[in-house]
């Protein structure tokens, strides 16, 4: 007979704690551990009773401590402060009691207390509509004496789906769309670059995308003070970077700008040169979380969602199609289905090398396969003075590494700056299984050796 899973879970949780804490008095430690577990489950049970609506009673009533499907499992047995414990697990060396009241006041919010200072994209962090629900209030105010409040202020309501405009790359190929370009001075360009560098939506962009996005930002002069650039509750289509001037940010707890002298709500921050606001509009059309008003004559740079997302989409789309096209030319992979080819194209990783880099070295054990995406490279073999071959865009090398561990048969050295798309044997096998199997699909008699020579000049 095997041990009940609940028991095993409890014991492994205890084991983890013991390993972490290395207690001197093991017995006392274990006793305390289980006492805390029990305490937290009980607290949770009492909570769930208070939470349950009349029609839900049937479930909540029997949920402690017996065999009901809910809430009694050790895996589920964190107290109401379980999110706090999530944080602690990695950031705090002391075991805190899982019960809410003894939770140390600062463990969860330290990273979210950044003031709504200018220049950060976090400006709107607390704009949830009501400052009461704001996560960055002092955690002690969570009180935990009010059992009704869910830890971490997690919103317990139904969540609404979001959706942006339908983006279809197929149609963009026909209408020859190019992103708008607005001239900027070098100074402006570098200021803009710095302004968006902290935002994760921009930090993933490659150089081309980044240049296109910065080029698409359009100057928007704000002639005077008192102009509401965005209004809380309105639809949002633009993201703004402040070039010069200054803006105040207001949040009305009703969730939208209202008429009358107090309609703006409370001032929650100021944003100045290098700052930015409205970034959620780059994702989808959500109501603005705040009203932003100019306090003097100012200049903004604006970028709309469709332009932004389309720049990203078009470059991703083109890159994938280019990779798929390259992959089609690789005889070793000729039997891939279009589906498999698109998976490999998705997994290819772009790398850049300066001129003169040895990308693969003769005699080394091969691990990765490369496609030359831009630039040029030459092939050298030991004992031969001159390059035996040169590679251009679309050429590929090292693909036999996907098949076996044979040493590289030549060296490849870049002669210009190059961009390669690469994938390792492990990555390939993880996605599609061993290459041998894929090759055998078309023709069982076909083996790696029979077409090895035309497949890869590097293989011997």
């Amino acid at each position: 007979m095997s041990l009940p899973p609940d028991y095993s879970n409890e014991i492994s949780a205890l084991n983890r704690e013991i390993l972490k804490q290395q207690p001197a008095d093991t017995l006392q430690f274990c006793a305390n551990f289980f006492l805390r577990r029990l305490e937290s489950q009980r607290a949770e049970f009492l909570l769930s009773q208070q939470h349950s609506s009349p029609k839900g009673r049937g479930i909540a009533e029997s949920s402690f401590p017996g065999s009901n499907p809910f809430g009694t499992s050790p895996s589920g047995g964190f107290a109401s402060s379980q999110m706090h414990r999530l944080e602690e697990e990695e950031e705090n060396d002391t075991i805190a009691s899982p019960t809410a009241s003894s939770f140390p006041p600062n463990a969860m919010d330290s990273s979210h207390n950044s003031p709504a200072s200018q220049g950060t994209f976090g400006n709107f962090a607390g704009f949830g509509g009501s400052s009461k629900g704001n996560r960055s209030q002092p955690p002690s105010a969570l009180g935990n004496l009010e059992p009704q409040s869910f830890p971490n202020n997690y919103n317990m309501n139904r969540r609404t789906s979001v959706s942006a405009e339908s983006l279809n790359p197929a149609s963009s190929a026909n209408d020859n769309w190019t992103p708008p370009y607005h001239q900027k001075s070098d100074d402006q360009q570098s200021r803009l670059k710095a302004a968006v560098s902290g935002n994760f939506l921009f930090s993933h962009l490659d150089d081309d995308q980044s240049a296109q996005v910065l080029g698409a930002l359009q100057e928007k002069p704000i002639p005077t003070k008192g102009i509401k650039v965005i209004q809380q509750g309105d639809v949002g289509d633009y993201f703004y970077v402040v070039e010069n001037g200054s803006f105040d940010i207001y949040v009305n707890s009703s969730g939208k700008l209202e008429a009358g002298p107090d309609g703006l709500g409370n001032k929650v921050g100021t944003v100045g040169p290098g700052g930015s606001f409205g970034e959620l509009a780059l994702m989808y059309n959500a109501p603005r979380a705040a009203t932003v008003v100019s306090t003097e004559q100012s200049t903004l740079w604006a970028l709309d969602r469709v332009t932004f997302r389309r720049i990203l989409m078009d470059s991703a789309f083109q890159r994938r199609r280019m990779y798929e096209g390259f992959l089609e030319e690789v005889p070793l992979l000729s039997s891939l289905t279009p589906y498999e080819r698109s998976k490999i194209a998705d997994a290819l990783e772009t790398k850049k090398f300066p001129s003169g880099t040895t990308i693969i070295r003769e005699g080394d054990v091969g691990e990765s396969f490369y496609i030359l995406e831009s630039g040029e490279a030459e092939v050298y073999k030991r004992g031969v003075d001159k390059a035996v071959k040169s590679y251009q865009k679309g050429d590929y090398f090292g693909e036999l590494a996907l098949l076996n561990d044979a040493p590289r048969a030549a060296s490849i050295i870049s002669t210009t700056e190059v961009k390669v798309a690469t994938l390792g044997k492990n990555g390939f096998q993880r996605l599609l299984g061993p290459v041998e199997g894929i090759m055998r699909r078309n023709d069982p008699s076909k083996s790696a050796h029979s077409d090895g020579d035309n497949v890869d000049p590097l293989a011997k």
Partner: protein
Amino acid sequence: MAAAVHKLLHPHSHGRNSSKSEPEQHSSSPHERQDSAMDRAREDEKRSLAQWEEHKRPLSPDKVASDPERKMVGHSSRVLRQDDFELVKTLGTGTFARVWLVRLSDAREADQDKVFALKILRKVDVIRLKQVEHVRNERNVLAAVAGHPFITTMVASFQNHDSLYMLLDYCPGGEVFSYLRRARRFNEPTSQFYAAEIVLILEFLHEKEGVAYRDLKPENILIDAEGHLKLVDFGFAKKVENRETYTLCGTPEYLAPEVIRNTGHGTAVDWWAFGILVYEFLVGQPPFWDQNPMKIYEQIVEGRVRFPTAMSADARDLISGLCTVDTSKRLGNIQGGAGTVKSHAWFKDIDWDALYNRRVNGPIVPHLRGPADTRNFDEYEPESDSREPYSKDMAEKWDEYFKDF
């Protein structure tokens, strides 16, 4: 027989296009003879709807995937109208749709208990919210998947001048969401059971239909009278097959990193969301959360999931595998597909075949007074009266896109 029924139900499918060129016909009464043929077809269709439930049983995945025209359900009806149904109660609302519990109007005594969920979409709202493409995808995917044991069955779809209708089977247990919030979290066996049924759904959608669902969350999963799951709301479902797609859609906490970064996404987004779902089952809230949605997205693209101390090692391993930012390493998307998820240690107690055939009892069997009991659904605000009309101009421009509905 189904083919015969189908023929009977679509006697006017040719005449429909011609009526489009003369929109005035809507108000003027058509031919008398046509009318009586129409009435007979309607009566036949209503009778077959009333009996539909008795015939339903899980179809094998391959049967479900077969041509929807040959199935009893999922067709586009040319004869049904809103008057054929009595609206009983709102079951749910969305930004441009409302789902009603409905009963067949003028039903015979024996059919009084025969109820359905009727999803009504206003064309004008669908257009305003730029959801035309999504709504078409929804109907087509639902028609294609009708008959799967854990997916809501679209019995029929139809339309009138200003609305689109999807007639769905009624799932009286309500949303998994409500049970989860009430219980705060599910224990491991309960989570495993529900997760396993979701795996079967995703396996079918991805590998048989080439469909990405794109909005997995507890709100979209219902519990049926026997305690099994039904996936509903296919508003973002799309047949992607081997092409990536780019439109951002989903629910903030459940969006996959590649959707946020707009690098193109496919069925792998469902495996990410599935990891979030399992986490929410076990913990009571999703792993990435902040008051400010941009902060949620920042956490998602970073992809560092934190686990509570007491979560079992197998559950952590499964969730980590699913919530992997790199799609070429994400469980479910790598070689073996859903099979790799099914053979994960966390699912070792699941008998997959028995589960598909509903031979395993669900952990929660809803208490019901009858098939039309709505106690498991929340109350919703009544529909607002003010409604933008679907103008002639709009109809001219857009009806084209709804013609197959």
